[in-house]
């Protein structure tokens, strides 16, 4: 097994052993979405109108919630500096950890999304676009979040600062993610929005590991 896949396997196993993985972010996703019918009232027309936005905002927040564990635990127990000294370039270490984060925090959201879409009465025409948009958008959330997590890794209470750094960067994903679903519901082609989401994901795939690795090097000095 190569070092890259060994690191992904370790992070996924760590997340499941600590019980903070899939379960926690999916539970948060469910709860955050279920607050909206309680808050705005149970009228199906209103819920159907806001469903795509609610689902995306809740997904953003639940990914954000799990970002602090991306590097923090490894930083505190000394594993991170050993990983930085291992043969694997730090950029690839970041990429492996982002992939593991997506597998444990992003992928479960995509699996849970159809159930919640049903709950909010999202028009069936939008469901396929929602799943595609989330599949293209959530990897960007993990990758962009890695920059914030790397910058705040040496701060004891970096959680709030992490949100302030990362949430503005999530806005493009939110806009095009919602737009793709809305277009599909309106019977328009959503391909252009999905392509932009794919472009964001590809750019994040290249740039975010570089930026996060540079931030980690500063933190490790």
């Amino acid at each position: 097994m190569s070092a890259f896949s060994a690191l992904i396997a370790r992070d996924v196993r760590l997340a499941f052993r600590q019980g903070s993985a899939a379960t926690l972010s999916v539970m948060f996703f469910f709860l955050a979405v279920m607050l909206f019918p309680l808050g705005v009232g149970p009228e199906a027309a209103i819920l159907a109108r806001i469903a795509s936005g609610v689902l995306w905002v809740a997904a953003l927040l639940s990914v954000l919630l799990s970002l602090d564990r991306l590097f923090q635990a490894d930083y505190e127990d000394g594993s991170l500096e050993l990983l930085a000294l291992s043969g694997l370039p730090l950029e690839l270490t970041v990429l492996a950890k982002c992939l593991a984060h997506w597998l444990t925090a992003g992928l479960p959201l995509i699996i849970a999304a159809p159930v919640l879409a049903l709950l909010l009465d999202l028009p069936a025409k939008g469901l396929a676009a929602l799943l595609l948009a989330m599949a293209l958008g959530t990897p960007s959330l993990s990758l962009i979040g890695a920059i914030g997590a790397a910058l705040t890794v040496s701060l004891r209470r970096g959680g709030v600062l992490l949100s302030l750094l990362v949430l503005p960067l999530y806005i493009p994903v939110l806009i095009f993610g919602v737009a793709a679903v809305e277009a599909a519901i309106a019977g328009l082609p959503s391909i252009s929005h999905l392509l932009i989401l794919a472009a964001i994901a590809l750019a994040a795939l290249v740039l975010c590991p570089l930026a996060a690795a540079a931030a980690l090097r500063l933190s490790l000095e």
Partner: protein
Amino acid sequence: MPQTGFAGESLSCLRGERLVFREVSFHLEPGGALLLEGPNGSGKSSLLRLCAGLLKPAEGRLVYKGRDIAQDPEAHRARLAYVGHLDAVKAVFTVAENLAFWAALVPGGAGRAQAALERFELDHLAEVPGRFLSAGQRRRLALARILVQPADLWLLDEPTNSLDRAACEALTAAIATHRSGGGLVVAATHVDLGLGTVPVLRLGSPAPAPAVAPEVS
């Protein structure tokens, strides 16, 4: 400029605004060992982090086999093993799993895991989760890690912390084996590692005189 071994040439280290040490030089031939001594805060850990490439020297340079380590940091990382203050033991992984991960990072590491566990008498603890280990057992696990990741240069920061006598002897034996194969060791320590007569680099001589280091070989 020495063409063999590992050398530091008039190194200075700045942490924030503070000058930790300056004009520190050393030279290690293959098979050599260097002990770092000095009071708390004299820069032993900083020098080890410089040697590992985690910190950049404010002045001076580190040379391995005649080449500045800053020229090829990846090659340098591949030949060193570092044991810092922290043990990097995951609480939810068993001893064997903790070690297996570090072994998986290097080619052929998995085959050495069992021998490393036995060397530090961890084999009977292999299935115990990290959170139940004592401080000394965690330290032994951290030391076992450097046996599964074979490296030319060992950088050990207070390796004997929390170790009992038997584990100290196992460490001494491991260092002797490593050196007999041409390996290098730089260790910061307050206790006798039982390495015999090896050069000592004393850091933190009283200010304002610069820390004078012997040119050792």
